[in-house]
């Protein structure tokens, strides 16, 4: 509004900015940079240094340099191979199932129907529940004798007595997956639902008039709009799954027989159960490298997709 009357000083301001140049960014960024250095950077370096030592939790001051021994032994350790396998299965199923379920929920909740607002709100309940509380309730539901899932298994004739869900090697990981997917699918649903609002309704109507069936409308109109969101969800849920601790730790602590022992759980067990800080740190570093590789692949794929889309 005032810009017209003060065009003279404005031009001057452009030549000599009021903030005196380069100090401003430094001052703006310094606190957070310092903070992250102290509470993320320094601990990360410490963790890396630990990983090339043999150190016990009982005497963390006494560190013996062992070079890459921790890594070498992990690479040839069949139990660690199991850790990698469990982590891969857990992560992939989390990603596929929670995005699949989220997409289904989003498509159901899109559009106009009575009670839409309430339905959209209620579906996010699991996402809002604290993970420790989710673990607690699912531990109770998976209780061998009195849990709801055991009652259901008996009711439908799958089992005569109770089922030891969390102590049974073949059931523990699925039980943990069910808990996790229940917690995170609302996030996918909310993100996809927001993306669906960007689907041009004229395009959809035109497709309907042209007599296109639902599947081809989805493929031609809906999917291209939500694809970037789905790609980003894939990355986020992958990284979160590689990081998740509380639910798994509280439900099984990595057992039975290591069938729920993901990288993070393995790291924690090695540090606080086996007191082997050096090996634990090596597990952590390997997990970090995996996460970084996944992210790089994601960026490589998305830029390639963008380029391909640009060419067309």
């Amino acid at each position, binding site marked *: 509004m005032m810009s017209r009357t003060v065009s003279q000083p404005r031009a001057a301001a452009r030549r000599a900015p009021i903030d005196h140049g380069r100090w401003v960014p430094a001052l703006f960024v310094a*606190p*957070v940079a310092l903070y992250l250095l102290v*509470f993320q950077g320094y601990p990360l370096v410490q963790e890396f240094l630990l990983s090339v030592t043999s150190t016990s939790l009982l005497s963390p001051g006494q560190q013996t340099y062992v070079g890459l021994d921790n890594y070498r032994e992990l690479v040839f350790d069949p139990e660690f191979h199991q850790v990698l396998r469990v982590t891969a299965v857990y992560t992939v199923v989390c990603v596929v199932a929670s995005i699949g379920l989220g997409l*289904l929920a989003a498509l159901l909740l899109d559009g106009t129907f009575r009670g839409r607002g309430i339905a959209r709100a209620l579906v996010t309940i699991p996402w*809002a529940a604290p993970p420790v509380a989710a673990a607690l309730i699912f531990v109770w539901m998976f209780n061998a004798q009195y849990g709801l899932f055991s009652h259901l298994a008996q009711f439908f004739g799958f089992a005569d007595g109770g089922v030891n869900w969390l102590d049974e090697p073949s059931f523990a990981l699925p039980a943990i997956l069910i808990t996790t997917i229940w917690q995170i699918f609302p996030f996918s649903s909310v993100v996809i639902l927001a993306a669906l609002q960007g689907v041009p309704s004229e395009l959809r109507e035109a497709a309907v008039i042209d007599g296109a069936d639902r599947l081809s409308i989805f493929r031609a109109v809906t999917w291209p709009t939500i694809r970037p969101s789905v790609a980003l969800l894939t990355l986020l849920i992958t990284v979160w799954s590689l990081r998740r601790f*509380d639910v798994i730790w509280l439900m099984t602590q990595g057992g039975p027989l290591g069938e729920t022992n993901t990288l993070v759980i393995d790291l924690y067990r090695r540090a606080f159960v086996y007191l082997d800080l050096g090996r634990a740190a090596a597990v952590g570093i390997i997990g970090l490298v995996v996460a970084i590789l996944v992210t790089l692949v994601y960026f490589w794929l998305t830029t390639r997709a963008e380029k391909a889309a640009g060419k067309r």
Partner: protein
Amino acid sequence: MKHNSTARTLAVLVLLGVAAFPLYWMLVTSLTPSERLFDDTPNLLPTLSQIGTYAAAFTETSLRQWLVNSLIVAVGTTVLSILLSVLPAYALSRLTFNGKLLLGFALFMTQMLPEAMLVVPLYDIFTKLSLLNTLLGLILANTAFTVPVVTWILKGAIDGVPSEIEEAARVDGCSRLGIVLAVVVPLIAPTLAAAAVIAFFHGWNEYVFAQTFISDDALRTASVGLASFVGELSTPVHTVMAVGFIYTLPAVVFYLFVQRYVVAGMTTGGVKG
């Protein structure tokens, strides 16, 4: 068409049932008399006369103290995260400076660090700084994990503020800091609220640091207090479930009220990336 909408209604109901059932089951379990918890057929409805369990949850456990501690940690994490994030978010969005790329990269990297991985080195640092066994220590540790997310979301919102608005203030002689605080912050208030909610939830939910860094019973947070019941047998199941429900319900209700801001904030900022 009619048939179609019935099928949809049914599907929506199933979906909502799946989403809400575990919490409902927590409530039902907390309101079931002990002796009937172990019946052959489960009780599907709450016994309202059992409401006394909720009083017992407060008298038989330290629930009140746990909730207060969790609230302190959550509020502290929220305030500190916002204070630390606004200026770097602005810098990342508007300013050019050396190390901008590095900062962006560092913020992204922290998303990949599991809390459990940093427990050991942070324990060491906190011992040296006398922050072990303090709620301030938990706030500092949590904030290290929320700051990157909050900064990123706020940067997204600031990207959407037209720079002409700022220029007018600059002509009036406002400093950069003045511009950020007086012009930019009010414009991104909804996103700021969303980011605050995300930080709050992180603090309210956090478990592994609270479990490892706190040894004093009086400083336990609700997540650790509740976790101490898992696999433990001396506290009655319905009391445990009442504690869990009291810890969960405020979070869920709060989230239902603020979620429209969170969704808007996440989709304009962070998630679009």
